[in-house]
């Protein structure tokens, strides 16, 4: 009698193990398989093409009926094993089939994880794991106008979404994280993927928290935390898998996250083996077939009696199987010390590639849009050989360029033929640019842009144009201009222009479309980009808190000892007894060590503990006070003098105008801080002539000033113009601030912006061009609709960013 080999589970891993076994020792065992699914072994990986209709089930069968017959295998279909009796050495199925074993393989795979939110048991909530799930999905998609919500924007969820879309459903993907497939992709590749899927009509919502699946008996919709309600006839949960270990655990085998095995796939019982997704080896569990097939090979050899082989952990690579989307990732692509990255972006073709090297070895790769070299990079990652400096120059271009001579960019451009296209957007050839440089005597990028339009649109050929300037002019070429930071060759002006021209609405979008050289930017460019996006897309762009300096993130100024200062707004420098009393109470209640009048006519509470901030704000809010934005690249103070209310020289209500200006402008973000002052007469007690914007009241109206500085640099203001009414003063000042918000470079104060663009240009925009002024003013008022929520109140009463103010705590263990 042959020994009996019983297999629990008929998936991809044991299927491969049996193939190895039969090749090596054909008649060694009598094989009996239990399969909970009522069918033969099929290629689970290819379920998505079946869902989309591109394949049929028959196309994806691995082992047909004849294979089981030829190998004398007994296959119990639709038979779920519910008990392993290690004493008696038998297994028993739910329906009562019992088989005795000499050797047993547990290959139960994994179970999809279902989020236990309210409604998760309604009819129409599905997982995505086997053919039955696919059949149900197709059934739903056959109904007219049906819609689906897929929870989970990982590999499986996106494949399901693309398949359902191809079946004609309305599909929404909900993803908890800010970018798709964050485990396999960095944010740039995630952005490209999101863009591609959205363009196919799949609705993608990131940072989405599912609150509840709604419906009577069956799914009718999905409710999100933020109150959004999405209609749905079906919900597919694709949020992760858990190794299926219950059976092994009940049988008393050692388990962790998975069934613990040795390097020969043996469990803690020497006659029981385990293979596939249910296994845990040296702390790793696997969810992709490559390592499982390796486990299967080792197991097959082991059962065939060929000892001496052992399984070892190795890297895995991923490809998303959505027709028309090329995406590949492998290895480890986290940032780290000693790690360097090579990034290649081609915005016009939608290509993004990133390689990560550690100590001169390739350790990770992400490819989007062009993945032909994926296998080659993956091989390099697994081999772990040192990449020579020469090889490295062309590494990102893949196998075909490996070993080629690196070209210096100027030499490469010089070698191009005259009809080579340099600027794709405007169809400008090399010959045209060179002749323009020579004939028109152009000396710089700006000249080439205005003369030929080359690099004036998307800007990604800027580097090529500069190389052309360099090789045409030689030493005469003054070189490149100031860039935002080392992550890009573009200057702030170009970046601002391109954000508008190309309608870029997120930081990853800017980085991808404008060819950022790093994957995530740095502490210098991220705050700048965040500001540009806030200012350009009011109401649309969602502020990226992590790209803000701490003061703007927690709405208070950090102090040398890690405490914070709190400065409530004092409109136009005014206060009253109620506010003062509330401030006094807050100081006592929270034992605030220092109270000081600032140089900006208001009160500063210094030394507040971070955890107390929300409570301090609550008390100040209750007395009617809001944030003074003493921390912001935005409106700070509007200083005033007492004006006609009290002063014997006052010509206008300077205090009142100051309050109106501050009410209009508070909450606005700007490239750098903005300070105003309104003085009631030319004696100028509010020091209007050293402010970003200053007003001096005179008998006949208001003299408007701008461009003063009194910090590290001192300079008096220049006159903008004179206006007659308060309304005009407000309109001109609002328009001026908006022009600066739209044109200023990050950290550039109004005087530096005016120095750069010219004081006369500013006057022409704001004073001479009445229509332009009104348009600036209207855009300012519009953007203020989204800016004037008191950030303190949002945090004190509405729970925004609660994690900032409450540390995690662990008490000492016993």
């Amino acid at each position, binding site marked *: 009698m042959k020994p009996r080999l019983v297999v629990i589970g008929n998936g991809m891993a044991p299927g491969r193990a049996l193939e190895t076994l039969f090749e090596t020792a054909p008649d060694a065992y009598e094989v009996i398989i239990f399969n909970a699914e009522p069918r033969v072994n099929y290629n689970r990986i290819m379920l998505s093409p079946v869902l989309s209709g591109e394949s049929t089930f028959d196309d994806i069968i691995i082992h047909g009926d004849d294979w089981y017959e030829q190998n004398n295998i007994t296959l119990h279909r639709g038979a779920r094993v519910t008990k392993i009796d290690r004493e008696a050495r038998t297994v028993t199925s739910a329906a009562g089939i019992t088989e005795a074993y000499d050797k047993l393989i547990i290959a139960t795979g994994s179970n999809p994880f279902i989020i236990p939110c309210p409604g998760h048991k309604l009819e129409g909530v599905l997982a995505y794991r086997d053919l039955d799930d696919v059949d149900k999905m197709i059934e739903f998609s056959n109904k007219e106008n049906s819609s689906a919500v897929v929870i989970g924007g990982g590999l499986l969820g996106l494949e399901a979404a693309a398949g359902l879309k191809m079946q004609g459903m309305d599909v929404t993907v909900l993803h*908890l*994280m*800010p970018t798709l497939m*964050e*485990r396999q992709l*960095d*944010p740039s590749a995630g952005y490209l993927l999101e863009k591609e899927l959205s363009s196919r009509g799949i609705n993608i919502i990131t940072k989405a928290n599912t609150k509840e699946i709604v419906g009577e008996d069956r799914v009718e919709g999905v409710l999100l935390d933020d109150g959004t309600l999405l209609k749905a006839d079906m919900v597919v949960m694709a949020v992760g898998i858990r190794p299926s270990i219950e059976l092994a*655990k009940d049988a008393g085998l*050692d*388990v*962790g*996250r998975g069934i*613990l095995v040795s390097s020969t796939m043996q469990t803690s019982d020497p006659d029981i083996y385990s293979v596939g997704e249910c296994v845990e080896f040296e702390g790793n569990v696997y969810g992709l077939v490559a390592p499982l097939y390796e486990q299967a090979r080792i197991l097959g050899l082991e059962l065939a009696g060929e000892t001496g082989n052992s399984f070892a952990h190795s890297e895995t690579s991923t490809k998303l199987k959505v027709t028309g989307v090329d995406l590949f990732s492998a290895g480890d*692509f*986290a*940032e*780290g*010390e000693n*790690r360097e990255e090579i990034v290649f972006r081609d915005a016009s073709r939608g290509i993004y590639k990133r390689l990560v090297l550690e100590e001169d070895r390739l350790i990770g790769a992400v490819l989007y849009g062009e993945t032909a070299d994926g296998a080659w990079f993956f091989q390099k990652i697994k081999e772990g050989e040192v990449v020579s400096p020469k090889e490295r120059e062309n590494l990102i271009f893949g196998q075909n360029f490996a070993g080629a001579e690196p070209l210096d960019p100027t030499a490469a451009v010089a070698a191009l033929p005259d009809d080579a296209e340099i600027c794709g957007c405007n169809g400008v050839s090399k010959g045209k640019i060179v002749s323009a440089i020579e004939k028109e005597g152009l000396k710089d990028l700006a000249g080439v842009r205005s003369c030929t339009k080359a690099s004036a649109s998307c800007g990604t050929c800027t580097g090529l144009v500069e190389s052309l300037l360099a090789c045409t002019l030689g030493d005469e070429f003054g070189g490149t201009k100031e860039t935002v930071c080392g992550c890009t060759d573009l200057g702030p002006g170009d970046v601002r222009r391109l954000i508008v021209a190309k309608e870029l609405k997120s930081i990853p979008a800017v980085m991808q479309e404008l060819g950022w050289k*790093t*994957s*995530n*930017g*740095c*502490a210098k460019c*991220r*705050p700048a980009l965040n500001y540009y996006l806030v200012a350009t897309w009011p109401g649309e762009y969602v502020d990226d*808190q*992590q*790209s*803000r*300096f*701490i003061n703007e*993130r*927690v709405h208070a100024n*950090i102090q*040398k*000892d*890690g405490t914070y200062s709190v400065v409530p707004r004092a409109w136009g420098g005014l206060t009253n007894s109620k506010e003062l009393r509330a401030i006094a109470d807050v100081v006592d209640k929270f034992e605030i060590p220092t109270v000081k009048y600032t140089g900006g006519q208001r009160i500063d509470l210094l030394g507040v503990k971070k955890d107390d901030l929300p409570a301090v704000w609550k008390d100040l809010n209750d007395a009617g006070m809001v944030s003074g934005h003493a921390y912001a690249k935005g409106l700070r103070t509007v200083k005033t003098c007492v004006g006609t209310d009290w002063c014997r020289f006052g010509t206008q209500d300077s205090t009142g105008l100051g309050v109106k200006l501050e009410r209009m402008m508070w909450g606005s973000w700007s490239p750098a801080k903005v300070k105003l002052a309104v003085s009631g007469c030319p004696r100028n007690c509010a020091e209007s002539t050293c402010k970003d914007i200053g007003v001096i009241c005179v008998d006949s109206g208001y003299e408007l000033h701008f461009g003063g500085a009194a910090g590290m640099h001192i300079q008096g203001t220049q006159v903008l113009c004179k206006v007659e009414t308060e309304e005009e003063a407000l309109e001109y000042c609002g328009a001026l601030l908006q022009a600066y918000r739209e044109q200023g470079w990050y950290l550039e104060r109004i005087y530096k912006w005016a120095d750069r663009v010219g004081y006369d240009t500013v006057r022409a925009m704001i004073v001479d061009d009445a229509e332009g002024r009104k348009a600036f003013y209207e855009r300012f008022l519009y953007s203020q609709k989204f800016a004037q929520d008191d950030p303190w109140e949002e945090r004190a009463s509405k729970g925004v960013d609660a*994690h900032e103010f409450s*540390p*995690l*705590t*662990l*008490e*000492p*263990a016993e």
Partner: protein
Amino acid sequence: MTIDTAVLDWRDLCAIDDIPVQGSRRAIINGREIGIFRTSSSEIYAIDNACPHKQGPLTEGIVHDCSVTCPLHNWVFDLKTGVAQGQDEGSVTTHPIQIRDDRVYIQLKG
């Protein structure tokens, strides 16, 4: 279920999603202030939350790549090694972190 003995020294701190991406959380563990950081690729690191320069709270800094920039005077620290980058010299203690089932476990170093 058998438990890996090594697991016993690890303390369950929080869920991964309690820490904002490209952000941080302060943690008080046995009375000691530790900064827990999460990079854009969701790697988690733990370091003592005091800058060796002038005790700046590093959790309040901007997280970029695998580093954090101190909010007080802009020293930059590698989160993995705790070593100051560039011209500046100094380092902070790092603490081992393990992720299991989307939870963050920490082992406190002396």
